[in-house]
């Protein structure tokens, strides 16, 4: 309640400030000393009061100050008994006067907790509704929607009148509706209209608001709110189904990406390669190292480190793959059990080597700006990171398909795996082709590592999480069939996500495994079995 009262105060002050804005801009009078003393006290209660006072002061630097406070850029200095902030670029200001100043060395950031962070956001929302920056306006409208401060209503109306951006307009309208519907003093008719307005475009947050109000509402208003809730719920249900399918596709693309290299080494060559996961892991570490180099040398190009890591990861893991093939696997062709044990050994060696070299703890690979955050698409919330991974997986898949079907190397690979002796008689260097094929499979696993570094831990154990799933995908899809791998990965991904809401993550995984075992009983060669002589050997 205290927050609400405070907010109301802020809103009122804002209305005054709006009127007085030209005057305030002309003579920048310093903030009252009381605000500084309160911040210096460094207790959450005092900070809360100070935030209210800053927002109500009408000082031109108030919005910048509150923004700085939210980002831990507002500092108190005991020695100078002063309050300072830095702007986004790191330039220092004296918060009291708003004039540029050096931030003292002993300055420490003003602490916040979640409750105060909410207060800051609400105050900032009301202060920045008229900001020229559309991103800030959108954020302001969203925080007003959450705070539902009735005193912000005039400001919203004013902002709405001059808003041209349709998306922001929509959020403004929702925010206005939220204020009206939550205001018990507003006339019932307009509250009912507000409920219908929220039902029109409302999502999860609108639902939360209506549910909260329906408990207190009575009579006609209650029934309008209830029906609005139902409207949103129906819409949410359809979205939910779409969301589940999207989650499935996204999980499927991760499975496919992890399995695609194995589809070459295990699927095409028939090598039971337990070190496959470690190739993925090495690819992720290459990404980490690339990013470290960029961070140290070219910080402004950091966003480019990921695309550059892709060819690097391919080459390095490909070389490691060729080394493993030349050093270990070539002596073991046709002896699957020994291959399994040997590659398992290789996998342990690689893991421990990485652990000794980089340490056992996780390494941070940061997400480039184009892979952070999410957007809404016909009501589905889609995260950029996942979307890029789906696109990337499909690109890698089709590039690989093209390589196998349309290049001389691909032709030789297929020839050697189908009939080694015949291929050798035709003059193909089968050993060279073996090494290249294994290198290709490993290199693609390395590329997978680049993408997986974005969603998983970059740690020595990274590969182990994917090895079982990868084998599952390849076996289910039909060994030696790339299209089978594609379909199998997406089938498993979507099935997993359909089961998860009902069965839970643990049981869901078990059910999938049981179904898979039953399926393999019926069709031992998987979804798309290869036919012909190659299979009989």
């Amino acid at each position, binding site marked *: 309640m205290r927050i609400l009262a405070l907010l109301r105060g802020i809103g009122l002050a804002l209305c005054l400030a709006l009127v007085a804005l030209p005057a305030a801009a002309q003579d920048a009078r310093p903030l009252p000393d009381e605000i500084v003393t309160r911040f210096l006290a460094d207790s*959450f209660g005092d900070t809360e009061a100070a935030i209210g006072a800053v927002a109500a002061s009408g000082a031109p630097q108030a919005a910048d100050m509150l923004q700085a406070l939210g*980002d*831990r850029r507002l500092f108190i200095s005991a020695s100078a008994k002063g309050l300072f902030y830095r702007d986004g670029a790191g330039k220092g200001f004296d918060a009291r006067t708003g004039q540029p100043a050096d931030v003292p060395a002993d300055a420490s950031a003003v*602490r*916040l*907790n*979640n*409750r105060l*962070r909410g207060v800051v956001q609400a105050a900032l929302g009301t202060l920045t509704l008229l900001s020229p920056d559309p991103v800030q306006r959108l954020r302001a409208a969203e925080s007003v929607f959450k705070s539902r401060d009735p005193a912000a209503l005039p400001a919203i109306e004013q902002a709405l009148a001059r808003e041209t951006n349709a998306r922001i307009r929509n959020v403004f309208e929702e925010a206005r509706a939220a204020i009206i519907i939550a205001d018990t003093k507003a006339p019932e008719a307009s509250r009912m209209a507000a409920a219908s307005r929220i039902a029109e475009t409302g999502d*999860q*947050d609108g*639902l*939360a*608001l*209506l*549910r*909260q*109000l329906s*408990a207190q509402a009575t009579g006609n208003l209650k029934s309008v709110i209830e029906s609005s809730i139902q409207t949103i719920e129906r819409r949410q249900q359809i979205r939910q189904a779409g*969301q*589940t399918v999207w*989650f499935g596709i*996204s*999980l499927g693309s*991760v499975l496919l990406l992890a399995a695609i290299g194995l589809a070459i080494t295990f699927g095409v060559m028939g090598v039971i390669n337990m070190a496959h996961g470690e190739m993925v892991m090495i690819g992720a570490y290459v990404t980490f190292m690339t990013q470290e180099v960029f961070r140290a040398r070219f910080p402004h190009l950091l966003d480019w480190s990921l695309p550059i890591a892709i060819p690097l990861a391919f080459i390095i893991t490909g070389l490691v793959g060729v080394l493993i093939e030349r050093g270990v696997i070539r002596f073991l062709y046709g002896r699957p059990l020994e291959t399994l044990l040997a590659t398992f050994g290789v996998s342990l060696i690689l*893991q*421990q080597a990485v*652990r000794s070299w980089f*340490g*056992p*703890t*996780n*390494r*941070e690979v*940061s*997400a480039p700006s184009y892979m*952070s*955050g*999410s957007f809404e698409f016909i009501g589905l*919330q889609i*995260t*950029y*990171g*996942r979307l890029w991974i789906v696109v990337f997986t499909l690109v890698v898949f089709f590039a690989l398909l093209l390589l196998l079907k349309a290049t001389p190397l691909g032709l030789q690979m297929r020839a050697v795996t189908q009939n080694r002796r015949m291929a050798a008689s035709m003059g193909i260097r089968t050993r060279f082709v073996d090494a290249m094929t294994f290198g290709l499979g490993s290199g693609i696993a390395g590329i997978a590592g680049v993408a997986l570094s974005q*969603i*998983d*831990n970059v*740690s*020595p*154990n990274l590969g*182990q*999480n994917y090895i079982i799933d990868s084998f599952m995908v390849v076996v289910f899809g039909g060994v030696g069939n790339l299209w089978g791998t594609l379909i199998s990965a997406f089938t498993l991904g979507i099935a*997993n*996500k359909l089961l*998860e*809401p009902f069965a*839970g*993550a*643990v049981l869901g*995984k078990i059910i999938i495994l049981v179904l898979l075992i039953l399926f393999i009983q019926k069709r031992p060669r998987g979804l798309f079995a290869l036919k012909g002589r190659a299979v009989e050997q």
Partner: protein
Amino acid sequence: MTNMSFTRRGVLGAALGGAAVMASGVRPVFAQGAPIKVGILHSLSGTMAISETTLKDVMLMLIEQQNAKGGLLGRKLEAVVVDPASNWPLFAEKARELISQHKVSATFGCWTSVSRKSVLPVFKELNNILFYPVQYEGEESERNVFYTGAAPNQQAIPAVDYLMSKDGGEAKRWVLAGTDYVYPRTTNKILEAYLLAKGVAKEDIMINYTPFGHSDWQTIVSDIKKFGSAGKKTAVVSTINGDANVPFYKELGNQGIKATDIPVVAFSVGEEELAGIDTKPLVGHLAAWNYFQSVKNPVNEAFIKSWKAFKKNDKAVTNDPMEAHVIGFNMWVKAVEKVGTVDIDKVIDTLPGIEAPNLTGGVSKMLPNHHITKPVLIGEVRGDGQFDVVWQTKDLVPGDAWTDHLEGSKDLEADWVTLKCGNYNTKLKKCG
């Protein structure tokens, strides 16, 4: 032949080296008695290496520092490091090796509860001392084990109390999310009982378990979002362990769940875990521990300084289980000095009542139930991967081995001083 000469050369070299030391006048400080051996039982390979390796290092540092101060009882301390490789049965074998073969006087080790359970019979049978430094689910008190990590009443319950308070956001609806094994299951059972007793309705509690190393959090995070939109303030209590945390937090950030909307309080995420994540989207999410690196006091600053010097890495972080080892080691040293011997039974009997400073500015005490007193701190994630302490208990909280919130456990009492029993039933007035 080569082997022979090699050995001979080795012996010769050692003798020469020894002579050189003598001749140059640098006499070994520890003239009398064989070194006192201290076992270190932490995984250095396998999945748990990520957490346990630093604990091995901190023990090595403490032993080195103690030796620089002149050792213990005038004898040198010698660390015996073994690697149980994140393999639970191997923990028992390695514990046996430490006690029977190396004759250690105390062992510092284990992380997961299952590894602790696996070594318990060995420590009982061979009568030795284990210091266990990790927060755990409680419901245990053994004569041979000293629990320097938090019991549920020193971490989970205060964290929930904080979220219910005004500053914590007055949460009314709860998601208990955990990894599927003994610690999260027991903790969540205790928390559920506690929440129900506090008047939270059954349908306002959502419990969710995921497998170890779970990496696809899309569905669960979107479920949490949905659960949180019922018009009541919602909070998530996370007992998600180890590797699964990074993708979980990444997904939270991506789906835009902000701490001001749905705060997540974690019991297994410390500075070490955050080192692998870009924490900017996570600012404001919480963790409950008994220690944070960012705590400001001279003892902690000195410890951080020596740790960074020991690791030769200016970015090395410290965390809660490390502090537990510091407290445990100092308590053991004091107990041995007090009783004047490393005799196992005498040290076990001396330890309760021993006090040692913790790194948050207080003095922790070993209790008769083999748990210690600690402060409880709630920290908020900062953009730089450290925590800001936003709340802490006024006094130190004594660890309670048997929780008061579960049937069957609330009548039990652990007291190794007067009752000589780890599970004394106060109703039936008998042990066991």
